[in-house]
């Protein structure tokens, strides 16, 4: 169509590997900082409890052999170091013919380390973008390195992940809340999304008519555009550009950890050298042919992926589609699909502490979270692609009027606050006590954005109204007595 050579994807691999390495780097930094207080030896959901309930063959993880905080630290920082090596494309520095084996070894090591965290992290690692990082990271191992061309089969497999990611999300929305079908989803989304960012307030106040167009655009990009990924390269690039624009808007208006960034990385695989050098002032080398052994490995990989794709595809076309599920212990081929349900009202949990013997309402002081709004005058912050795992679980927890079975970690969180556990307190945005308070409580509020008029007048970003008490005033003794059977 454009009279250029579309056969090579050398530039796409160059960008894909580096961007994916950057996401791995963030993911391992998150693990280094958060895994121990959340899911470590003495975490809110202790590692030993989780590992005692699962078998290695179902949830393979290095931590089955070393369920210790020391091993968690070593693995997380090893992941950081390996991510930096990948970011610097160190395998490409290795002389031929060893560059490709070095690349395979590096990317498989990253995959195995991260899979260990995902399979040991339980509730705190139950997000779709965890298995998606594993799946995408595994495929990255077989893209080759150095001056040779990447195997086209592996690029097709990356496009297949992207297709399931986008198309699955499109289907689950059509089957989910009515607000996706009556085009009102964006009337709520920016306000009730898990962790708003600095732009979310402004996006919420866009005209209603534009919100309708946004939802319609979402359906087109998630249900129709994914077919273009498998079209001839110039059309695939059109699909890629539409996907990048869509993900760019999501990146701009919310904090979804690395979900959008990872989708962008997958979409990079849609751009051939011919398209990129035509559209941008870039030079691309003429790569050497892909070695025969790597082509053979890629074909075997494709057969495995196709065989493992049967259940995810059946799930995708089923009326009872489930979101974000792995069907094999190595999470090689998964099903994706997020935000089929949109919450219409935003509830927030606010943790408060006091040292008063008989406290009245003025004696309680609020803890602040890093991402979840507490103070109404504080502008939401940008965190993505960094992942605030405690804040995400707080968002789910606030949907209930009381802690439920999936909130077993809440009593542990409050105990840690009363114990002055520095690792857990480090997950908060601001801790208002130098020494631990005597008692804590958790209040439940309904939050809504201020109107432009309210914000012009007060400078506030939120209005809130107390709707209940999530956990009543409790000392350490109260918590241990009340929640003894829950943990």
């Amino acid at each position, binding site marked *: 169509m454009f009279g250029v050579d579309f056969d090579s994807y050398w530039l796409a691999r160059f960008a894909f590997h580096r961007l994916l390495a950057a996401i791995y780097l963030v993911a391992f930094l998150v693990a280094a900082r958060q895994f121990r207080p959340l899911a470590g030896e003495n975490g809110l959901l202790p590692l030993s409890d989780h590992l005692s309930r699962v078998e290695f063959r179902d949830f393979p993880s290095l931590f089955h052999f070393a369920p210790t905080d020391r091993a968690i630290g070593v693995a997380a920082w090893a992941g950081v170091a390996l991510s930096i090596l990948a970011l610097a494309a160190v395998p490409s520095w290795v002389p031929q013919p060893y560059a490709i084996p070095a690349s395979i070894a590096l990317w498989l090591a990253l995959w195995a380390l991260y899979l260990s965290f995902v399979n040991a992290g339980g509730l705190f690692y139950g997000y779709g973008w965890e298995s998606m990082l594993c799946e995408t990271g595994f495929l990255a191992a077989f893209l080759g390195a150095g001056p040779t061309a990447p195997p086209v089969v592996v690029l097709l497999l990356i496009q297949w992940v992207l297709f399931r990611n986008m198309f699955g999300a499109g289907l689950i929305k059509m089957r989910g809340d*009515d607000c996706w*079908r009556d085009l009102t989803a964006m009337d709520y989304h920016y306000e009730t999304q898990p962790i708003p960012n600095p732009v979310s307030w402004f996006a919420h106040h866009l005209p209603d008519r534009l919100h309708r167009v946004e939802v*319609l655009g979402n359906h087109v990009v998630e249900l129709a555009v994914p*077919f273009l990924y*498998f079209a001839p390269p110039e059309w695939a690039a059109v699909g890629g550009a539409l996907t990048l624009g869509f993900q760019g808007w999501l990146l701009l208006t919310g904090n979804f950890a690395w979900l959008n960034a990872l989708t962008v990385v997958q979409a990079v695989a849609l751009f051939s050298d011919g398209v990129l050098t035509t559209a941008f002032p870039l030079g691309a080398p003429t790569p050497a042919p892909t070695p025969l052994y790597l082509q053979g490995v890629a074909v075997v990989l494709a057969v495995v992926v196709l065989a493992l794709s049967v259940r995810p595809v059946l799930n995708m076309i089923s*009326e009872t589609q489930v979101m974000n599920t792995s069907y094999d212990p190595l999470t090689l081929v998964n099903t994706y699909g997020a935000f089929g349900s949109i919450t219409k009202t935003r509830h927030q949990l606010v943790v408060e502490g006091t040292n008063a013997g008989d406290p009245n309402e003025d004696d309680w002081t609020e803890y602040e979270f890093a991402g979840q709004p507490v103070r109404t005058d504080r502008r939401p912050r940008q965190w993505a692609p960094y992942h605030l795992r405690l804040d995400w679980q707080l968002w789910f927890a606030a949907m209930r009027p009381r802690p439920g079975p999936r909130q077993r970690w809440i009593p542990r969180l409050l105990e840690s606050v009363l114990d002055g556990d520095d690792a857990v307190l480090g997950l908060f945005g601001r801790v208002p006590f130098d020494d631990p308070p005597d008692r804590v409580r958790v209040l439940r509020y309904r939050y809504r954005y201020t109107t432009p008029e309210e914000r012009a007048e007060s400078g506030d970003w939120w209005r809130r109204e107390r709707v209940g008490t999530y956990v009543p005033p409790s000392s350490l003794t109260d918590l241990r007595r009340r929640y003894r059977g829950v943990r």
Partner: protein
Amino acid sequence: MVERFVQYVLVGGVLLLAGLWTPELVPEYAFVGYAVAFVGALSLAVGIERELDY
């Protein structure tokens, strides 16, 4: 049973792909390919539209 809107979308997607590949693979039938791609795009649009309730 696959829902009707999914049937429209899947058939539309396959037709779109077949139509777009035709000019690459059989250039002399490019016109037919674009016609098939148009029908595919139409089927995708109908599949999405029939689920909407606005």
